Protein backbone atom coordinates (compact mmCIF):
# COMPACT_ATOMS: atom_id res chain seq x y z
CA UNK A 1 0.00 0.00 0.00
CA UNK A 2 2.61 2.51 1.11
CA UNK A 3 4.92 1.64 -1.74
CA UNK A 4 2.23 2.30 -4.29
CA UNK A 5 1.50 5.69 -2.84
CA UNK A 6 5.15 6.65 -2.95
CA UNK A 7 5.79 5.39 -6.41
CA UNK A 8 3.60 8.02 -7.98
CA UNK A 9 5.63 10.90 -6.61
CA UNK A 10 9.08 9.37 -7.05
CA UNK A 11 11.14 10.19 -10.12
CA UNK A 12 13.34 7.58 -11.79
CA UNK A 13 16.39 9.61 -10.74
CA UNK A 14 15.47 9.25 -7.09
CA UNK A 15 15.02 5.52 -7.54
CA UNK A 16 18.48 5.19 -9.06
CA UNK A 17 19.99 7.25 -6.24
CA UNK A 18 18.27 5.09 -3.64
CA UNK A 19 19.49 1.93 -5.35
CA UNK A 20 23.06 3.28 -5.39
CA UNK A 21 22.86 4.13 -1.69
CA UNK A 22 21.31 0.82 -0.70
CA UNK A 23 23.88 -1.20 -2.68
CA UNK A 24 26.74 0.78 -1.15
CA UNK A 25 25.27 0.35 2.32
CA UNK A 26 25.19 -3.40 1.77
CA UNK A 27 28.83 -3.35 0.64
CA UNK A 28 29.74 -1.50 3.84
CA UNK A 29 27.59 -3.55 6.20
CA UNK A 30 27.96 -7.09 4.79
CA UNK A 31 31.55 -7.58 5.98
CA UNK A 32 30.66 -6.28 9.43
CA UNK A 33 27.60 -8.50 9.59
CA UNK A 34 29.71 -11.46 8.50
CA UNK A 35 32.14 -10.89 11.35
CA UNK A 36 29.42 -10.66 13.98
CA UNK A 37 27.41 -13.66 12.79
CA UNK A 38 30.45 -15.91 12.36
CA UNK A 39 31.71 -15.05 15.82
CA UNK A 40 28.86 -17.17 17.22
CA UNK A 41 29.55 -20.27 15.13
CA UNK A 42 31.52 -23.43 15.68
CA UNK A 43 35.04 -23.70 14.27
CA UNK A 44 33.99 -25.78 11.26
CA UNK A 45 31.00 -23.64 10.43
CA UNK A 46 32.85 -20.35 10.75
CA UNK A 47 35.54 -21.63 8.39
CA UNK A 48 32.95 -21.41 5.61
CA UNK A 49 32.38 -17.74 6.47
CA UNK A 50 28.85 -17.72 5.13
CA UNK A 51 26.25 -15.09 5.94
CA UNK A 52 23.71 -17.61 7.22
CA UNK A 53 22.71 -17.79 10.86
CA UNK A 54 24.61 -20.27 13.02
CA UNK A 55 22.98 -23.70 13.31
CA UNK A 56 24.00 -23.60 16.93
CA UNK A 57 24.91 -20.43 18.81
CA UNK A 58 28.29 -20.59 20.54
CA UNK A 59 28.24 -17.73 23.00
CA UNK A 60 31.14 -19.42 24.73
CA UNK A 61 33.44 -18.18 21.93
CA UNK A 62 33.44 -14.84 23.64
CA UNK A 63 34.40 -16.06 27.08
CA UNK A 64 37.16 -18.21 25.57
CA UNK A 65 38.56 -15.27 23.62
CA UNK A 66 38.28 -13.05 26.64
CA UNK A 67 40.43 -15.41 28.68
CA UNK A 68 42.94 -16.55 26.07
CA UNK A 69 43.29 -13.34 24.10
CA UNK A 70 44.44 -11.31 27.11
CA UNK A 71 41.79 -8.81 26.14
CA UNK A 72 41.25 -7.24 29.51
CA UNK A 73 44.93 -6.39 29.84
CA UNK A 74 44.95 -5.05 26.30
CA UNK A 75 41.84 -3.04 27.02
CA UNK A 76 43.37 -1.33 30.03
CA UNK A 77 46.63 -0.71 28.17
CA UNK A 78 44.73 0.89 25.28
CA UNK A 79 42.65 3.03 27.64
CA UNK A 80 45.81 4.13 29.44
CA UNK A 81 47.73 5.01 26.25
CA UNK A 82 44.85 6.69 24.48
CA UNK A 83 43.44 8.44 27.55
CA UNK A 84 46.65 9.86 28.99
CA UNK A 85 48.42 10.82 25.77
CA UNK A 86 45.33 12.40 24.23
CA UNK A 87 44.52 14.38 27.38
CA UNK A 88 48.03 15.80 27.64
CA UNK A 89 48.20 16.62 23.92
CA UNK A 90 44.79 18.28 23.72
CA UNK A 91 45.31 20.41 26.82
CA UNK A 92 48.85 21.60 26.10
CA UNK A 93 48.17 22.09 22.40
CA UNK A 94 45.12 24.20 23.21
CA UNK A 95 47.33 26.46 25.34
CA UNK A 96 49.91 26.67 22.59
CA UNK A 97 47.33 27.22 19.86
CA UNK A 98 45.79 30.01 21.94
CA UNK A 99 49.06 31.95 22.10
CA UNK A 100 49.95 31.13 18.48
CA UNK A 101 46.61 32.45 17.30
CA UNK A 102 46.32 35.54 19.52
CA UNK A 103 49.92 36.70 19.31
CA UNK A 104 50.47 36.00 15.66
CA UNK A 105 53.77 37.82 15.23
CA UNK A 106 56.54 36.72 12.93
CA UNK A 107 58.11 34.30 15.43
CA UNK A 108 54.84 32.60 16.30
CA UNK A 109 53.79 32.33 12.66
CA UNK A 110 57.10 30.62 12.05
CA UNK A 111 56.56 28.25 14.97
CA UNK A 112 53.05 27.48 13.73
CA UNK A 113 54.21 26.43 10.28
CA UNK A 114 57.18 24.63 11.81
CA UNK A 115 54.76 22.50 13.84
CA UNK A 116 52.37 22.20 10.91
CA UNK A 117 55.05 20.64 8.71
CA UNK A 118 54.97 17.73 11.17
CA UNK A 119 51.64 16.69 9.66
CA UNK A 120 53.73 15.07 6.95
CA UNK A 121 56.80 13.84 8.75
CA UNK A 122 56.92 10.07 9.05
CA UNK A 123 58.05 8.95 12.50
CA UNK A 124 61.46 7.30 12.45
CA UNK A 125 60.86 4.58 15.01
CA UNK A 126 64.38 3.19 14.85
CA UNK A 127 65.93 6.36 16.21
CA UNK A 128 62.92 7.02 18.43
CA UNK A 129 63.66 3.76 20.24
CA UNK A 130 67.26 4.87 20.69
CA UNK A 131 66.16 8.25 21.98
CA UNK A 132 63.71 6.68 24.44
CA UNK A 133 66.51 4.41 25.63
CA UNK A 134 68.68 7.46 26.28
CA UNK A 135 65.91 8.92 28.41
CA UNK A 136 65.49 5.56 30.17
CA UNK A 137 61.89 5.07 29.07
CA UNK A 138 62.32 2.54 26.26
CA UNK A 139 60.07 -0.50 26.63
CA UNK A 140 57.91 1.24 29.19
CA UNK A 141 54.33 2.43 29.10
CA UNK A 142 55.68 5.91 29.75
CA UNK A 143 57.74 5.71 26.57
CA UNK A 144 54.71 4.73 24.52
CA UNK A 145 52.66 7.57 25.97
CA UNK A 146 55.41 10.08 25.17
CA UNK A 147 55.59 8.77 21.60
CA UNK A 148 51.83 8.94 21.10
CA UNK A 149 51.56 12.43 22.61
CA UNK A 150 54.38 13.84 20.49
CA UNK A 151 53.03 12.45 17.26
CA UNK A 152 49.59 14.06 17.63
CA UNK A 153 50.84 17.59 18.32
CA UNK A 154 50.78 18.89 14.72
CA UNK A 155 47.17 17.85 14.14
CA UNK A 156 45.98 19.17 17.52
CA UNK A 157 47.65 22.55 17.09
CA UNK A 158 46.40 22.83 13.51
CA UNK A 159 42.74 22.14 14.25
CA UNK A 160 42.51 24.00 17.57
CA UNK A 161 44.25 27.11 16.23
CA UNK A 162 41.83 27.26 13.31
CA UNK A 163 38.99 27.20 15.78
CA UNK A 164 40.44 29.83 18.13
CA UNK A 165 40.76 32.31 15.28
CA UNK A 166 36.94 32.33 15.14
CA UNK A 167 36.64 33.45 18.79
CA UNK A 168 36.72 37.25 19.05
CA UNK A 169 39.57 38.67 21.15
CA UNK A 170 37.10 40.98 22.92
CA UNK A 171 36.48 38.10 25.33
CA UNK A 172 40.10 38.34 26.42
CA UNK A 173 39.93 42.08 26.98
CA UNK A 174 36.78 41.83 29.06
CA UNK A 175 38.42 39.21 31.28
CA UNK A 176 41.56 41.28 31.65
CA UNK A 177 39.63 44.34 32.75
CA UNK A 178 38.22 42.12 35.48
CA UNK A 179 41.80 41.50 36.55
CA UNK A 180 42.28 37.92 35.34
CA UNK A 181 45.77 36.52 34.70
CA UNK A 182 46.63 34.48 31.60
CA UNK A 183 45.91 31.15 33.29
CA UNK A 184 42.54 32.27 34.64
CA UNK A 185 41.71 33.80 31.27
CA UNK A 186 42.61 30.61 29.45
CA UNK A 187 40.99 28.06 31.74
CA UNK A 188 37.88 30.00 32.75
CA UNK A 189 37.04 31.94 29.60
CA UNK A 190 38.72 30.28 26.61
CA UNK A 191 38.48 26.57 27.45
CA UNK A 192 34.67 26.64 27.85
CA UNK A 193 34.41 28.36 24.47
CA UNK A 194 36.72 25.75 22.95
CA UNK A 195 34.78 22.84 24.36
CA UNK A 196 33.34 21.56 21.06
CA UNK A 197 36.67 21.52 19.24
CA UNK A 198 38.49 20.06 22.23
CA UNK A 199 36.00 17.19 22.42
CA UNK A 200 36.31 16.62 18.67
CA UNK A 201 40.09 16.52 18.71
CA UNK A 202 40.01 14.33 21.78
CA UNK A 203 37.71 11.77 20.15
CA UNK A 204 39.59 11.74 16.83
CA UNK A 205 43.00 11.38 18.47
CA UNK A 206 41.74 8.88 21.03
CA UNK A 207 40.50 6.72 18.18
CA UNK A 208 43.77 7.32 16.39
CA UNK A 209 45.79 5.91 19.28
CA UNK A 210 43.31 3.07 19.70
CA UNK A 211 43.90 2.13 16.04
CA UNK A 212 47.63 2.72 15.96
CA UNK A 213 49.41 -0.49 15.18
CA UNK A 214 52.88 0.60 14.15
CA UNK A 215 53.87 2.53 17.29
CA UNK A 216 53.30 -0.35 19.73
CA UNK A 217 54.76 -2.79 17.18
CA UNK A 218 58.06 -0.94 17.45
CA UNK A 219 57.88 0.29 21.01
CA UNK A 220 56.04 -2.27 23.13
CA UNK A 221 58.74 -4.62 24.29
CA UNK A 222 56.71 -7.25 26.09
CA UNK A 223 53.24 -8.65 25.50
CA UNK A 224 52.07 -7.30 28.86
CA UNK A 225 52.33 -3.83 27.33
CA UNK A 226 50.36 -4.65 24.18
CA UNK A 227 47.32 -2.50 23.45
CA UNK A 228 44.17 -4.23 22.32
CA UNK A 229 44.81 -4.41 18.59
CA UNK A 230 48.32 -5.79 18.97
CA UNK A 231 46.88 -8.42 21.29
CA UNK A 232 44.36 -9.28 18.58
CA UNK A 233 47.07 -9.58 15.97
CA UNK A 234 49.04 -11.85 18.25
CA UNK A 235 45.95 -13.92 18.91
CA UNK A 236 45.28 -14.15 15.16
CA UNK A 237 48.79 -15.48 14.64
CA UNK A 238 48.08 -18.31 17.05
CA UNK A 239 44.53 -19.00 15.92
CA UNK A 240 44.58 -18.65 12.13
CA UNK A 241 42.30 -21.62 11.65
CA UNK A 242 39.84 -20.63 14.39
CA UNK A 243 38.00 -17.87 12.61
CA UNK A 244 35.15 -18.00 15.13
CA UNK A 245 37.55 -16.91 17.88
CA UNK A 246 39.27 -14.35 15.69
CA UNK A 247 35.92 -12.81 14.78
CA UNK A 248 34.79 -12.72 18.41
CA UNK A 249 38.09 -11.05 19.25
CA UNK A 250 37.53 -8.49 16.48
CA UNK A 251 34.04 -7.69 17.79
CA UNK A 252 35.28 -7.15 21.34
CA UNK A 253 38.15 -4.95 20.15
CA UNK A 254 35.91 -2.83 17.95
CA UNK A 255 33.17 -2.35 20.52
CA UNK A 256 34.80 0.52 22.42
CA UNK A 257 35.42 2.62 19.29
CA UNK A 258 31.94 1.90 17.96
CA UNK A 259 30.45 3.10 21.23
CA UNK A 260 32.66 6.18 21.18
CA UNK A 261 31.58 6.86 17.59
CA UNK A 262 27.88 6.58 18.40
CA UNK A 263 28.22 8.85 21.44
CA UNK A 264 30.49 11.38 19.78
CA UNK A 265 29.17 11.24 16.23
CA UNK A 266 28.12 14.87 16.05
CA UNK A 267 31.52 15.96 17.34
CA UNK A 268 33.37 13.88 14.76
CA UNK A 269 31.43 15.27 11.85
CA UNK A 270 31.47 18.76 13.37
CA UNK A 271 35.20 18.43 13.88
CA UNK A 272 35.87 17.47 10.32
CA UNK A 273 33.89 20.58 9.42
CA UNK A 274 35.75 23.02 11.63
CA UNK A 275 39.15 21.49 11.18
CA UNK A 276 38.76 20.69 7.55
CA UNK A 277 37.00 23.63 6.08
CA UNK A 278 38.08 26.98 7.28
CA UNK A 279 35.44 29.54 6.47
Amino acid at each position, binding site marked *: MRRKKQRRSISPRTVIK*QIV*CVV*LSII*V*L*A*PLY*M*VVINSFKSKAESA*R*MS*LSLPTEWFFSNYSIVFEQGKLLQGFFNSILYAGVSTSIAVL*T*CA*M*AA*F*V*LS*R*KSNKVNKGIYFF*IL*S*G*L*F*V*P*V*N*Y*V*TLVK*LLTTFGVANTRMGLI*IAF*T*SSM*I*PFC*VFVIRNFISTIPAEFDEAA*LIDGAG*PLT*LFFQIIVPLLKPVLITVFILEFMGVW*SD*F*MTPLYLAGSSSMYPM*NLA*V*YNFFGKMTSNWNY*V*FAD*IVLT*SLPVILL*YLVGQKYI*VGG*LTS*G*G*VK*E
Partner: protein
Amino acid sequence: MNKRKVYPQWFLVIPLVLYVVFFLAPSLLGIIYSFTDWNVRSIKGINFIGINNYIEIFTSNKDYTLGIFNTLRFALVSNVIKLVPALFLAILLNENLKGKNIYRTIFYLPAIFPFLIIGLIFTSILNFKTGLLNTTLGFLHLDFLQQKWLTDLGVVWNSIFGVDAWRGIGYCMTIFLAGLNTIPKSYYEAASIDGANPVHKFFYITLPMLSSSIMINLVFGIAYGLKVFDIVYVLTNGGPGHATEVVTTYAYQLYANGKYGMSSALNTVLFVVTAVIGVLVVKVMSKQEVQQ
Protein backbone atom coordinates in the same frame (compact mmCIF):
# COMPACT_ATOMS: atom_id res chain seq x y z
CA MET B 1 46.71 45.46 26.07
CA ASN B 2 50.09 44.01 26.88
CA LYS B 3 50.30 41.01 24.61
CA ARG B 4 53.43 39.66 26.22
CA LYS B 5 51.68 39.34 29.56
CA VAL B 6 48.29 38.15 28.36
CA TYR B 7 49.57 35.57 25.93
CA PRO B 8 52.67 34.18 27.62
CA GLN B 9 55.14 32.40 25.40
CA TRP B 10 55.64 29.63 27.96
CA PHE B 11 52.24 28.24 26.94
CA LEU B 12 54.12 26.85 23.93
CA VAL B 13 56.82 25.05 25.86
CA ILE B 14 55.39 21.55 26.46
CA PRO B 15 54.09 20.80 22.95
CA LEU B 16 57.08 22.42 21.31
CA VAL B 17 59.60 20.46 23.38
CA LEU B 18 57.77 17.15 22.90
CA TYR B 19 57.40 17.82 19.19
CA VAL B 20 61.04 18.73 18.67
CA VAL B 21 62.57 16.05 20.91
CA PHE B 22 60.38 13.02 20.30
CA PHE B 23 58.98 13.66 16.85
CA LEU B 24 61.34 15.75 14.77
CA ALA B 25 64.65 14.80 16.35
CA PRO B 26 64.28 11.07 15.57
CA SER B 27 63.81 11.89 11.90
CA LEU B 28 66.82 14.22 11.88
CA LEU B 29 68.94 11.74 13.86
CA GLY B 30 67.80 9.14 11.35
CA ILE B 31 69.46 11.12 8.59
CA ILE B 32 72.77 10.97 10.46
CA TYR B 33 72.44 7.26 11.25
CA SER B 34 71.55 6.51 7.64
CA PHE B 35 75.21 7.13 6.81
CA THR B 36 76.40 4.52 9.33
CA ASP B 37 76.61 0.75 9.64
CA TRP B 38 74.58 0.83 12.88
CA ASN B 39 73.16 -2.62 13.50
CA VAL B 40 72.23 -5.00 16.28
CA ARG B 41 75.83 -6.19 16.60
CA SER B 42 77.49 -2.78 16.76
CA ILE B 43 78.08 -2.75 20.50
CA LYS B 44 81.60 -1.37 20.27
CA GLY B 45 80.75 1.52 18.05
CA ILE B 46 79.05 2.75 14.96
CA ASN B 47 81.07 3.58 11.87
CA PHE B 48 80.37 6.12 9.18
CA ILE B 49 80.13 4.38 5.86
CA GLY B 50 79.17 7.32 3.67
CA ILE B 51 76.39 6.71 1.22
CA ASN B 52 76.80 2.93 1.16
CA ASN B 53 73.31 2.34 2.54
CA TYR B 54 71.81 4.49 -0.20
CA ILE B 55 73.86 2.71 -2.82
CA GLU B 56 72.45 -0.56 -1.53
CA ILE B 57 68.90 0.81 -1.62
CA PHE B 58 69.13 1.98 -5.20
CA THR B 59 71.30 -0.75 -6.70
CA SER B 60 70.80 -3.98 -4.74
CA ASN B 61 68.58 -6.73 -6.07
CA LYS B 62 66.33 -6.60 -3.02
CA ASP B 63 63.67 -4.46 -4.72
CA TYR B 64 63.90 -1.52 -2.34
CA THR B 65 63.29 0.78 -5.28
CA LEU B 66 60.12 -1.16 -6.02
CA GLY B 67 59.04 -0.42 -2.45
CA ILE B 68 59.65 3.29 -2.97
CA PHE B 69 57.81 3.21 -6.26
CA ASN B 70 54.91 1.30 -4.68
CA THR B 71 54.65 3.88 -1.89
CA LEU B 72 54.46 6.79 -4.32
CA ARG B 73 51.96 4.95 -6.48
CA PHE B 74 49.82 4.10 -3.46
CA ALA B 75 49.78 7.74 -2.32
CA LEU B 76 48.61 8.81 -5.77
CA VAL B 77 46.25 6.04 -6.85
CA SER B 78 44.53 5.43 -3.50
CA ASN B 79 43.60 9.10 -3.29
CA VAL B 80 42.13 9.25 -6.78
CA ILE B 81 40.17 6.08 -6.08
CA LYS B 82 38.76 7.52 -2.86
CA LEU B 83 38.25 11.19 -3.68
CA VAL B 84 36.31 10.94 -6.94
CA PRO B 85 33.56 8.59 -5.65
CA ALA B 86 33.55 10.42 -2.31
CA LEU B 87 32.82 13.70 -4.06
CA PHE B 88 29.90 12.26 -6.01
CA LEU B 89 28.53 10.53 -2.93
CA ALA B 90 28.73 13.79 -1.01
CA ILE B 91 26.83 15.62 -3.74
CA LEU B 92 24.28 12.80 -3.79
CA LEU B 93 23.76 12.94 -0.03
CA ASN B 94 23.67 16.73 0.04
CA GLU B 95 20.40 16.68 -1.90
CA ASN B 96 17.04 15.89 -0.43
CA LEU B 97 17.26 12.15 -0.39
CA LYS B 98 15.18 10.04 1.93
CA GLY B 99 17.33 8.44 4.63
CA LYS B 100 20.40 10.52 3.79
CA ASN B 101 21.39 10.85 7.43
CA ILE B 102 21.36 7.07 7.87
CA TYR B 103 23.43 6.65 4.71
CA ARG B 104 25.93 9.24 5.96
CA THR B 105 26.33 7.34 9.22
CA ILE B 106 26.72 4.00 7.44
CA PHE B 107 29.25 5.25 4.90
CA TYR B 108 31.41 6.82 7.60
CA LEU B 109 31.30 3.70 9.76
CA PRO B 110 34.33 1.85 8.27
CA ALA B 111 36.58 4.82 9.06
CA ILE B 112 36.31 4.22 12.79
CA PHE B 113 37.75 0.70 12.70
CA PRO B 114 41.46 0.17 13.23
CA PHE B 115 43.29 -0.72 10.00
CA LEU B 116 44.49 -3.85 11.66
CA ILE B 117 40.93 -5.03 12.27
CA ILE B 118 39.91 -4.18 8.71
CA GLY B 119 42.95 -6.01 7.43
CA LEU B 120 42.01 -9.13 9.39
CA ILE B 121 38.38 -8.95 8.24
CA PHE B 122 39.41 -8.70 4.61
CA THR B 123 42.01 -11.42 4.93
CA SER B 124 38.98 -13.60 5.51
CA ILE B 125 36.72 -11.99 2.89
CA LEU B 126 39.36 -12.17 0.15
CA ASN B 127 40.22 -15.81 0.89
CA PHE B 128 40.21 -17.63 -2.45
CA LYS B 129 38.28 -20.72 -1.43
CA THR B 130 35.98 -19.68 1.39
CA GLY B 131 36.03 -15.88 1.34
CA LEU B 132 32.80 -13.92 1.20
CA LEU B 133 33.74 -12.11 -2.03
CA ASN B 134 34.33 -15.20 -4.14
CA THR B 135 31.34 -17.06 -2.72
CA THR B 136 29.11 -14.06 -3.41
CA LEU B 137 30.42 -13.86 -6.97
CA GLY B 138 29.73 -17.58 -7.35
CA PHE B 139 26.24 -17.13 -5.96
CA LEU B 140 25.56 -14.35 -8.51
CA HIS B 141 26.89 -16.62 -11.32
CA LEU B 142 29.78 -14.23 -11.86
CA ASP B 143 32.37 -16.97 -11.44
CA PHE B 144 34.55 -15.46 -14.13
CA LEU B 145 35.21 -12.52 -11.79
CA GLN B 146 36.57 -14.73 -9.02
CA GLN B 147 40.22 -14.07 -8.28
CA LYS B 148 43.06 -15.08 -6.03
CA TRP B 149 42.70 -11.66 -4.48
CA LEU B 150 45.73 -11.69 -2.20
CA THR B 151 48.13 -14.00 -4.00
CA ASP B 152 47.76 -13.22 -7.70
CA LEU B 153 50.42 -10.70 -8.73
CA GLY B 154 48.12 -8.97 -11.17
CA VAL B 155 45.28 -8.52 -8.72
CA VAL B 156 46.80 -8.02 -5.30
CA TRP B 157 47.31 -4.26 -5.57
CA ASN B 158 43.72 -3.80 -6.69
CA SER B 159 42.64 -5.69 -3.58
CA ILE B 160 44.66 -3.37 -1.36
CA PHE B 161 43.27 -0.30 -3.13
CA GLY B 162 39.78 -1.73 -2.77
CA VAL B 163 40.07 -2.38 0.96
CA ASP B 164 41.59 1.05 1.46
CA ALA B 165 38.71 2.63 -0.47
CA TRP B 166 36.18 0.62 1.56
CA ARG B 167 37.56 2.23 4.68
CA GLY B 168 38.32 5.71 3.38
CA ILE B 169 35.58 6.85 1.02
CA GLY B 170 33.13 7.69 3.80
CA TYR B 171 35.73 9.77 5.60
CA CYS B 172 36.53 11.82 2.51
CA MET B 173 32.81 12.11 1.78
CA THR B 174 32.20 13.62 5.22
CA ILE B 175 34.82 16.30 4.61
CA PHE B 176 33.26 17.09 1.22
CA LEU B 177 29.79 17.24 2.80
CA ALA B 178 31.07 19.80 5.26
CA GLY B 179 32.38 21.86 2.36
CA LEU B 180 29.18 21.54 0.34
CA ASN B 181 27.28 22.83 3.35
CA THR B 182 29.04 26.17 3.08
CA ILE B 183 28.02 26.83 -0.54
CA PRO B 184 25.01 29.19 -0.59
CA LYS B 185 22.02 27.76 -2.46
CA SER B 186 21.50 31.13 -4.12
CA TYR B 187 24.58 30.55 -6.30
CA TYR B 188 22.90 27.58 -7.93
CA GLU B 189 19.61 29.44 -8.29
CA ALA B 190 21.34 32.37 -9.97
CA ALA B 191 23.17 29.98 -12.30
CA SER B 192 19.90 28.28 -13.20
CA ILE B 193 18.39 31.61 -14.17
CA ASP B 194 21.37 32.22 -16.42
CA GLY B 195 20.65 28.89 -18.08
CA ALA B 196 23.50 26.82 -16.64
CA ASN B 197 23.14 23.04 -16.85
CA PRO B 198 24.21 20.66 -14.04
CA VAL B 199 27.63 20.11 -15.62
CA HIS B 200 28.28 23.86 -15.74
CA LYS B 201 27.15 24.21 -12.13
CA PHE B 202 29.49 21.41 -11.07
CA PHE B 203 32.54 22.87 -12.77
CA TYR B 204 31.89 26.57 -12.18
CA ILE B 205 30.32 26.55 -8.70
CA THR B 206 30.76 23.27 -6.82
CA LEU B 207 34.38 22.49 -7.64
CA PRO B 208 35.82 25.98 -7.07
CA MET B 209 33.83 26.44 -3.85
CA LEU B 210 35.09 23.08 -2.60
CA SER B 211 38.75 23.93 -3.13
CA SER B 212 39.55 23.99 0.59
CA SER B 213 37.84 20.63 1.22
CA ILE B 214 39.68 19.13 -1.72
CA MET B 215 42.90 20.56 -0.33
CA ILE B 216 42.31 19.09 3.13
CA ASN B 217 41.42 15.70 1.71
CA LEU B 218 44.53 15.73 -0.44
CA VAL B 219 46.80 16.84 2.40
CA PHE B 220 45.61 14.16 4.81
CA GLY B 221 45.27 11.59 2.03
CA ILE B 222 48.77 12.02 0.65
CA ALA B 223 50.30 12.17 4.14
CA TYR B 224 48.51 8.94 4.95
CA GLY B 225 49.38 7.32 1.63
CA LEU B 226 53.11 7.97 1.93
CA LYS B 227 53.14 6.51 5.45
CA VAL B 228 50.91 3.52 4.70
CA PHE B 229 51.86 0.45 6.69
CA ASP B 230 49.13 -1.33 8.67
CA ILE B 231 46.86 -2.34 5.85
CA VAL B 232 49.67 -3.70 3.67
CA TYR B 233 51.37 -5.42 6.58
CA VAL B 234 48.22 -7.23 7.66
CA LEU B 235 46.75 -8.02 4.23
CA THR B 236 49.82 -9.23 2.36
CA ASN B 237 52.89 -8.54 4.53
CA GLY B 238 54.55 -7.32 1.34
CA GLY B 239 53.81 -10.46 -0.62
CA PRO B 240 53.41 -12.34 -2.86
CA GLY B 241 57.19 -12.23 -3.12
CA HIS B 242 57.99 -8.55 -2.67
CA ALA B 243 55.19 -7.36 -4.96
CA THR B 244 53.34 -5.23 -2.42
CA GLU B 245 56.25 -4.11 -0.31
CA VAL B 246 56.22 -0.41 0.62
CA VAL B 247 58.91 1.71 2.28
CA THR B 248 57.49 1.25 5.77
CA THR B 249 57.24 -2.54 5.53
CA TYR B 250 60.84 -2.76 4.32
CA ALA B 251 61.92 -0.39 7.10
CA TYR B 252 60.22 -2.57 9.69
CA GLN B 253 61.80 -5.77 8.33
CA LEU B 254 65.24 -4.18 8.38
CA TYR B 255 64.62 -3.00 11.93
CA ALA B 256 63.43 -6.44 13.02
CA ASN B 257 66.56 -7.94 11.46
CA GLY B 258 68.73 -5.51 13.38
CA LYS B 259 69.89 -3.49 10.36
CA TYR B 260 69.20 -0.13 11.96
CA GLY B 261 71.38 1.95 9.65
CA MET B 262 69.69 0.59 6.52
CA SER B 263 66.28 1.01 8.10
CA SER B 264 67.12 4.64 8.86
CA ALA B 265 68.27 5.18 5.30
CA LEU B 266 64.95 3.94 3.94
CA ASN B 267 63.08 6.10 6.44
CA THR B 268 65.18 9.06 5.35
CA VAL B 269 64.22 8.53 1.73
CA LEU B 270 60.57 8.64 2.84
CA PHE B 271 61.30 11.66 5.01
CA VAL B 272 62.79 13.59 2.10
CA VAL B 273 59.87 12.78 -0.20
CA THR B 274 57.26 13.79 2.40
CA ALA B 275 59.25 16.88 3.38
CA VAL B 276 59.31 18.13 -0.20
CA ILE B 277 55.57 17.59 -0.59
CA GLY B 278 54.90 18.98 2.89
CA VAL B 279 56.84 22.18 2.26
CA LEU B 280 54.93 22.74 -0.97
CA VAL B 281 51.59 22.28 0.78
CA VAL B 282 52.50 24.46 3.77
CA LYS B 283 53.60 27.18 1.32
CA VAL B 284 50.22 27.08 -0.38
CA MET B 285 48.47 27.16 2.99
CA SER B 286 50.49 30.10 4.30
CA LYS B 287 49.59 31.97 1.11
CA GLN B 288 45.92 31.34 1.83
CA GLU B 289 46.53 32.55 5.37
CA VAL B 290 47.89 35.84 4.06
CA GLN B 291 44.94 36.30 1.76
CA GLN B 292 42.46 35.96 4.58
